[in-house]
C-alpha cells in the first residue's frame, strides 16, 4: 500500500518535474529535484524509463560524482522504474545521475538521451539560534533607539543559506523586524521604549526548514548599557588622613534608568584593585567615601554603573582614572634601628647606627632623633618625596658614635611634618659580653630566593633575630621573630654578587654575636679570568707562574679551581689547581721553546679565560753555561800551563830551534882578507847581527806584512840605502832561492869596488810577486843574472864552521839591528825553499826591514846551495 502510494507520488513528481525528459526526448526521467537536501539525511530518488522499451530498470544504474552507487541501495519499483537511496554527506554540490548500460547500439549512440540527473544542493536544517542577547548603548543623554542583538547559529552552506529574522515587539505597542544572514542584527525604533516591555526573538529559515529562538520578554532597561560615570572627583581632607571622598555624575538622567555603581581603587603603581563591596554602592548614589586607606598614599579610583536592578542591564565600562593622595599622618610604628661596629679600640667602640624608615612613614620623614643616655642628636634627612613614598624602606645613616665598653641604650624616633613616631631601641651590650651566635647557619637558594636556616643559640633567651646581608658597601637587614628557624631574605638581592649573610640573635640584654656565611643568589662564570705572569724569568724546563685573585666583584661565584693551560705549538697542556692557589710552577717544559699560557677561573657555572702570557724557556739550564765556560777556561789554562811546562822543560831544544847558534863573522877568517872593511864594518858592528836577521825575515815573513808596514819598511830601506846598501850576499841570501845563485843589483857594484876581490853571484828575480806579497807596480820579468860581486866566498861555504862568523860580519856591515835581534834563531822558511823566486835588490830592499823576525837560515841555506 505504501509502495503504491509512493509510486503515485513519484508520478505526481514527474508530472511536476522539469520538462527535461519530454522537452529533450530523454528516455530517462529522475525525480524529485529538491531545492536542497539535508546533509546527513537519506535521499531517495527514482529513475523512470519513458517512451522506449529498449531498456528496462535492470539496465539502469546510479552515479554520484562519477562513482556508481552500489546495487544494494537500489529498489526496483517495476520494469521501468528504479529507486536509489543515498546518504547525503559533504557540503559540495553534486549530481546524482541515472544512467543506462550500453545494451544496444542505439543506447550507445544516444547516450545523452539515456541519462538524467538530479542536482544535490546540500545544506543543513537551520538550528535554533542560541544565546540571544541584545544591547542598547547610551547615545548622548538618551539611550539609542537601536537595539543590537546577537545569537549563535548552526552550520550552513553557501547553496543553502540560512536567513535570520530578528523580531522586536514592544508589547501592546509596535513590532519591528530585520533580516540578515549574519548572526547579529540591529533594530531601529523611533525612540528607545523606556519602561516598555519588549519581546525579542530570532527566526532562522532556509529551504530545509524554519526554527525560532527563545523569546526574550523583558523590560527595555534589561538591555541598556550606559556610559561610564563622568566627572570623577576625589576630595582629600586633612582631618581624615585615611579617607578619600569620591564624587561623580551619573552618565544618564535617573528618569531613564536608575543606576547602581561599583567602585574600585588601588595604590598608584599597584595592579591589584580593591573593590568596594556591592552592598555599599548598589544604590543610586553620587558619592562615596573610601576609608581605611594609608596616609600619604596615592590612590587611583574608577567607577562604573549599571541598571539598579540586579538582573537588568550591562555594566558600563570603567571610568577614567581619578587619582588623589591621602593626607599625611604621623609615622605609624617605629624606625628599624640597626648598627654595625666600625672599629674596636681599647676603651671605646666606634659604632655606626643606621635605620630604616618606619613601615608606614605616613608622610615624608624630615629628621630622626637619636638619643644615647643624656646625649641627643637630631639628624635631618632630605629625601625626595618619591623616596619617602616608595615601597622600598630607605636606609639612613644616623650617627657614628664612640661608645664606651659599657652597655649602651640607643633610642631613635622618626619625625615627619605631622608628628613623631614611637622610639626604636637597640641595646649595645658590654664589650666582650655579647652572648653566643646562632648555630648551624646554612644558606641556600630556591626559587630565586635565598633562604637561611639555623638553630637557636644555647645562651640566653632570644627576643628576635636580625638577618643582615652585606656586599661591598651595601648593607641591608630584616628582622625575624624568636621562633624563626628558617626564613627567606626579602631584600632585592642581585645575581652573581657575593653576600656576607649574618644572623644576629637579639637578646634582652643586647645584640648577640653574629654567625656569618657567604652566599650567592645565583652564580655565573667569572667576569674576567686571572692575569697570569711569570714570577721571574723562565727556566730551562720550568717556569713559575703567578696570578692575582680575581676581584670580588668580578668573580660572580665561588671560584672552585683554576686551570692553567700552557701550549707550545699544537700541544696543549693543562693543570688544575685549587682556588686558593695564586702561583704554580710548570715543570717538564722543553728548553728553548716558546710557550703560550693562560689561566681559567672556574665557578660552578663555568670558566672564564684570563689573559695570554707567552714566555720562552732558556736554551741552557741555570749554571750550564757557567759550567761550560769554566771547563773551557780550565782547558785553556791547562794548555797554557802545559805549553809553559813544555817550553821550560824543552827550553834547550826550543832555543836551539829558534835561536840557533850563529857563527860570528867577526871571528871568521874572511875578515882578514878585506883590510878596508874594518873601517866600514866598524860602524855597524854593534848591530851587525840584527841587520842580518832582518834580511832573513824578509823572505820568511814578508809575505804576512801588511801594506802599512811597508811604509815603515821603505823608510828603513832608505836608511839602509843611505848606508851604502847591502851587499849581494844579504839580498840574495834572503830573496833568492837557496838553490840558486844570488846576484846582487848594480848597487852591489859599489860594494864590489870596496872589496879586494869580487865574486860573481847569480841573481834570480821572480817575474811575479811572491805569494802573499803585494805585487809591484813595476813590471817584472823573471831573469837570472850573475852577480858582479867580486867578494870572495866565505870560508863557511867551504867550511860550514866559519859560516856564522861570516854572516855576522855581513850583518855588521849592512844592517844596524839590535844585537839581541841578531841573536834570534833563524829558521829557514820551507816555502822559500820551494820557491825559486829571487828578488831584485830593490825588492829585497823593500822587504828587508820587515824581516826582523826572520831567521837567518835561508841565507845559510842559500849559502849551502851555493
Amino acid at each position, binding site marked *: 500500500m505504501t509502495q503504491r502510494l509512493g509510486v503515485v507520488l513519484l508520478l505526481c513528481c514527474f508530472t511536476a518535474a522539469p520538462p527535461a525528459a519530454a522537452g529533450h526526448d530523454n528516455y530517462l526521467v529522475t525525480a524529485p529535484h529538491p531545492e536542497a537536501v539535508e546533509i546527513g539525511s537519506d535521499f531517495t530518488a527514482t529513475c523512470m524509463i519513458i517512451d522506449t522499451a529498449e531498456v528496462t530498470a535492470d539496465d539502469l544504474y546510479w552515479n554520484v560524482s562519477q562513482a556508481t552507487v552500489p546495487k544494494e541501495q537500489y529498489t526496483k519499483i517495476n520494469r521501468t522504474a528504479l529507486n536509489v537511496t543515498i546518504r547525503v554527506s559533504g557540503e559540495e554540490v553534486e549530481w546524482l545521475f541515472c544512467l543506462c548500460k550500453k545494451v544496444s547500439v542505439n543506447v550507445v549512440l544516444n547516450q545523452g538521451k539515456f541519462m538524467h540527473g538530479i542536482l544535490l544542493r546540500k545544506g543543513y536544517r537551520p538550528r535554533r539560534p542560541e544565546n540571544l542577547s541584545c544591547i542598547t548603548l547610551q547615545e548622548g543623554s538618551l539611550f539609542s533607539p537601536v537595539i543590537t542583538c546577537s545569537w549563535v547559529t548552526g552550520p550552513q552552506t553557501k547553496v543553502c543559506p540560512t536567513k535570520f529574522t530578528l523580531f522586536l515587539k514592544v*508589547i*501592546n505597542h509596535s513590532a519591528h523586524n530585520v533580516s540578515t544572514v549574519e548572526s547579529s542584527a540591529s533594530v531601529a525604533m523611533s*525612540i528607545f521604549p*523606556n*519602561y*516598555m*516591555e519588549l519581546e525579542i526573538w530570532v527566526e532562522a529559515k532556509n529551504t530545509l526548514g524554519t526554527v525560532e529562538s527563545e523569546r526574550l520578554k523583558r*523590560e527595555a532597561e534589561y538591555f541598556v548599557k550606559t556610559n561610564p560615570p563622568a566627572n570623577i572627583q576625589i576630595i582629600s581632607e586633612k582631618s581624615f588622613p585615611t579617607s578619600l571622598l569620591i564624587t561623580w555624575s551619573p552618565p544618564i538622567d535617573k*528618569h*531613564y534608568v536608575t543606576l547602581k555603581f561599583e567602585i574600585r581603587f588601588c595604590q598608584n603603581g599597584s595592579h591589584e584593585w580593591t573593590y568596594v563591596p556591592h552592598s555599599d554602592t548598589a544604590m543610586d548614589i553620587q558619592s562615596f567615601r573610601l576609608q581605611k586607606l594609608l596616609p600619604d598614599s596615592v590612590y587611583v579610583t574608577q567607577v562604573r554603573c549599571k541598571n539598579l536592578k540586579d538582573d537588568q542591564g550591562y555594566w558600563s565600562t570603567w571610568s577614567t582614572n581619578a587619582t588623589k593622595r591621602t593626607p599625611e599622618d604621623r609615622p605609624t610604628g617605629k624606625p628599624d634601628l640597626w648598627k654595625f661596629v666600625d672599629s674596636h679600640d681599647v676603651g671605646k667602640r666606634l659604632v655606626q647606627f643606621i635605620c630604616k624608615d618606619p613601615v608606614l612613614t605616613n608622610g615624608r620623614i624630615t629628621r630622626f632623633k637619636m638619643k644615647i643616655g643624656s646625649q641627643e642628636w637630631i639628624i635631618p634627612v632630605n629625601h625626595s618625596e618619591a623616596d619617602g613614598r616608595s615601597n622600598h624602606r630607605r636606609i639612613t645613616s644616623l650617627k657614628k658614635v664612640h661608645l664606651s665598653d659599657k652597655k649602651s641604650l640607643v633610642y631613635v624616633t622618626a619625625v615627619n611634618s605631622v608628628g613623631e613616631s614611637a622610639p626604636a631601641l637597640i641595646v649595645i651590650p658590654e664589650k666582650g659580653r655579647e652572648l653566643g651566635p646562632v648555630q648551624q647557619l646554612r644558606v641556600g637558594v630556591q626559587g630565586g630566593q635565598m633562604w637561611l636556616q639555623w638553630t637557636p643559640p644555647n645562651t640566653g633567651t632570644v627576643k628576635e633575630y636580625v638577618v643582615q646581608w652585606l656586599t661591598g658597601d651595601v648593607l641591608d637587614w630584616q628582622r625575624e621573630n624568636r621562633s624563626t628557624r628558617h626564613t627567606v631574605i626579602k631584600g632585592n638581592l642581585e645575581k652573581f654578587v657575593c653576600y656576607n649573610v649574618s644572623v644576629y640573635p637579639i637578646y634582652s640584654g643586647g645584640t648577640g654575636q653574629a654567625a656569618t656565611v657567604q652566599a650567592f643568589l645565583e652564580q655565573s662564570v667569572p667576569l674576567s679570568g686571572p692575569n697570569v705572569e711569570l714570577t721571574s724569568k723562565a727556566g730551562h724546563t720550568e717556569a713559575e707562574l703567578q696570578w692575582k685573585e680575581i676581584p670580588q666583584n668580578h668573580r660572580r661565584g665561588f671560584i672552585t679551581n683554576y686551570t692553567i693551560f700552557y701550549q707550545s705549538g699544537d700541544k696543549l697542556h693543562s693543570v688544575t689547581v685549587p682556588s686558593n692557589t695564586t702561583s704554580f710552577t710548570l715543570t717538564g717544559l722543553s728548553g728553548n721553546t716558546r710557550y703560550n699560557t693562560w689561566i681559567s677561573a672556574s665557578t660552578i657555572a663555568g670558566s672564564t679565560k684570563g689573559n695570554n702570557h707567552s714566555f720562552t724557556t732558556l736554551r741552557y739550564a741555570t749554571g750550564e753555561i757557567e759550567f761550560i765556560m769554566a771547563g773551557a777556561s780550565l782547558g785553556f789554562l791547562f794548555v797554557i800551563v802545559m805549553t809553559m811546562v813544555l817550553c821550560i822543560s824543552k827550553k834547550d831544544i826550543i832555543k836551539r830551534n829558534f835561536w840557533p847558534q850563529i857563527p860570528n863573522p867577526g871571528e871568521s877568517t874572511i875578515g882578514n882578507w878585506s883590510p878596508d872593511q874594518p873601517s866600514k864594518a866598524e860602524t855597524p858592528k854593534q848591530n851587525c847581527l840584527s841587520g842580518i836577521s832582518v834580511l832573513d825575515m824578509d823572505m820568511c815573513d814578508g809575505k804576512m806584512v801588511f801594506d802599512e808596514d811597508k811604509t815603515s819598511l821603505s823608510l828603513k830601506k832608505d836608511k839602509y840605502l843611505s848606508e851604502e846598501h847591502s851587499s849581494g850576499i844579504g839580498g840574495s841570501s834572503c830573496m833568492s832561492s837557496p838553490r840558486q845563485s844570488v846576484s846582487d843589483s848594480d848597487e852591489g857594484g859599489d860594494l864590489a869596488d870596496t872589496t879586494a876581490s869580487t865574486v860573481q853571484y847569480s841573481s834570480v828575480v821572480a817575474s811575479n810577486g811572491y805569494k802573499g806579497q803585494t805585487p809591484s807596480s813595476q813590471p817584472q820579468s823573471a831573469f837570472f843574472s850573475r852577480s858582479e860581486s867580486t867578494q870572495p866566498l866565505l870560508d863557511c861555504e867551504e867550511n860550514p864552521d866559519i859560516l856564522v862568523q861570516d854572516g855576522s860580519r855581513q850583518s855588521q856591515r849592512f844592517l844596524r839591528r839590535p844585537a839581541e835581534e841578531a841573536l834570534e834563531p833563524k829558521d829557514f822558511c820551507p816555502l822559500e825553499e820551494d820557491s825559486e823566486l829571487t828578488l831584485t835588490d830593490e825588492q829585497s830592499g823593500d822587504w828587508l826591514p820587515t824581516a826582523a823576525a826572520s831567521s837567518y837560515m835561508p841565507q845559510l841555506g842559500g849559502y849551502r846551495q851555493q
Partner: protein
Amino acid sequence: MNGYVKRMSFQQFMELTTTLLSLLLVMAVDSTRTVAVSGSQQCGNSVQQTLKLTRLLKKESVDLIETYKASQGEMSEDLCNLSVNNIPDPNISGLEPSERIASIYTHLQAFLTHFKRVYEQQTDLQLPSNPLLAELTNVSTRSRNLASLINSFYQSLFPNLPMPEPAGGPTTLPPPQNVFQQKVYGCAVLKTHLEFLSNVYRELRTLKSKVCRGI
C-alpha cells in the same frame, strides 16, 4: 474500665480531626495569601513601570516646554501664559478606578492628536534641525507608550471591561491659526499636557496604593 477506654479513644479521634482541620484551614489561607501577594506584586510592577514612564514623560515635557519657549523667539513667556480653548482638560475624570484609568487613556489619546497638530505647525515655523521637532516627536511617542501601558494596566485590572470610547467623540482640533495663535496653542498644549501628566502621576500613586493592595 472499658467504658473509660472507649471514651478516651473518641476523645483522641476528635483531637486528631481538629488538628487536621486546622492544618487544612491554615494551608487554604496561606494559598489564598500567596495568590494575593502574586497578583499584588504583578499589579505593583505594572503600576511601577507606568509611574516611571509618567515621571520620565514629565521630565521630557518640562524639557520640551523649555525648548519650545526658546524656539518661539521673544515674548515666549507671555505666549505661554495665554489661555486657549479646545485643549483637553488636564484633570482626570471618573469616580471608579476603572473610569479614572480609562480617562487617563482617553486624555492621552486626545493629547496625541494635539501633539500632531503642534508638530505640523512647528515644522512650518522651525528649521528641520531645531531640536524642538525631535523632542516633540519623542514626547509624542513616549505619550503613546504611556497610553499603551495604561491600556495594558487597565486590561490587567479589568479584563472584562472594554476600554470605553471617548465621551465627546473624536478629538476636535482648533481651526486654522495664524503664527501667533499657533505659538500660543502649542505652548498651551504642552503646558496642559504637563499638568495632565502630573495628575496622572498622582493618580497612579493612588491607584497603586488602592488597587494593587486590594488584589
